[in-house]
């Protein structure tokens, strides 16, 4: 079973995405900010990370800078899943190792599952 690390600070959204992805057959681990995600990643390697950008304590960009996915876990797929749609941040996230960007507000649960499935295949 593929494991997804869901990094999302909004409680309601974290719960919703966890439910959707669990029902789709994934093992979902929730983190509510970048530091919590880093802590999990120090001992574990999921197949995919669903990453919010604006979060307290450690935001998505700084998380990627510290995590250095291409060095530490080069096989992990990362989807930036945020309501922030500014080009410089998205470009920076991609440069730091993210594979895909989805605008949260425009993505239905079905589309999320499809994107996760497709990204895991790449």
């Amino acid at each position, binding site marked *: 079973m593929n494991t997804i690390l869901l990094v999302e600070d909004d409680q309601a*959204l974290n719960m919703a*995405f966890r439910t959707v992805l669990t029902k789709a057959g994934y093992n979902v681990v929730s983190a509510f900010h970048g530091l919590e995600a880093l802590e999990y990643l120090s001992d574990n390697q999921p197949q995919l990370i669903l990453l919010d950008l604006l979060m307290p304590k450690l935001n998505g960009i700084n998380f990627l800078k510290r995590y250095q996915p291409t060095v530490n876990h080069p096989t992990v797929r990362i989807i930036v899943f945020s309501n922030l749609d500014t080009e410089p941040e998205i470009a920076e996230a991609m440069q730091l190792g993210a594979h895909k960007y989805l605008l949260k507000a425009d993505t239905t649960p079905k589309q999320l599952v499809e994107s996760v499935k497709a990204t895991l295949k790449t």
Partner: protein
Amino acid sequence: MNAMNKRTIEQERARSDALFTSIGDGALATDERGIIRRANRVALELLGHTKSELVGSWYPKAVVATDGHGATIAVMDRPITEVFFTGKPVSAKTFYLKKDGTELPLSSTVSPILLGGKPVGAIEVFRDISLELAIDKMKSEFIALASHQLRTPLSAISVYAHMLQDGYAGTLNDQQMEYVTRTVDATTRMQALINALLNISRIESGQLAYNPKRVVMQEVIEQVLDESKPATKQKKLRIIRRLPKLPLVIMSDCLMVKEIISNLVTNAIQYTPPNGHITISARQEKQTVVIAIRDTGIGIPLDHRSQLFSPFYRAENALEYFESGTGLGLYLVKLLIAILNGEISFTSQEGKGSTFFVTIPMRQPSPSNNYSHTGL
């Protein structure tokens, strides 16, 4: 030359010096070889140079233009060169290297000094735009943050409504399903409104970067039609393509072109009753490409046509037929077409349908007449 003539010439020179010195912005004047002949106080203050360091020096060497990241802009690419070649004024936003090594963002206009129709030099007037850039940055950050904050609760409403609709909490009865569907539709509408407002505020504040690249029109049109498939399928609309066989290639901003076509196709779908037709064509006409989107929809009443591209404006029959429109789609299209130096027009017959024509230049060096090295 008699004494009186000499005095008159000296007085004229003094007057012209005073005029030049009292310009409130930085001002530099060169001769026909590009040697700086005059520099006013504001120019010296802004650049951090003394008069003797500038006057008598070759302009491109004494006043170094950069791209904002430390790289020098070549002489051939500087407005003054264009002015000498064309004899026409050029406005630019660029950076100048100050004596202390820092880069100063500024807005400048270089104009030729013409004597008997021949350029005998150039005059540049420039002003510091650091504060304007700082305000623009703040505005842009505010827009990004405000839209993020609006989208977050909306995402929660939308995702839970979709989950109910998809049966995550069990099977809904007909009435429950109807209410949830209405919630989903309202969140979709709200999202479209936020996206449109965000796009418009980005365009209006000049934050939407124009990135010209090779655009194959057939590919963009197919992408838009592909994304519209669920809606066209639902209404059983027939899509007719009239596209050239050979790739129709233009140099333009792909995302903007796509957004324009997407908005027009979405409108055609929304305002065409089920089983209707939508015809999309593209052809080259001289140095432009003309895209036409024809529908068999409700049409636009005569008395509503003049205001069709105004923000939040919706024709009466449109309001009755499709209440969820934002009234921002055509306004956004108009703004984007202006950036691409294109044109839009339409013909319509109420109850029969409309055709929108978009004309986009096949090539354009910059999005408008605003010369810019840096995309400031």
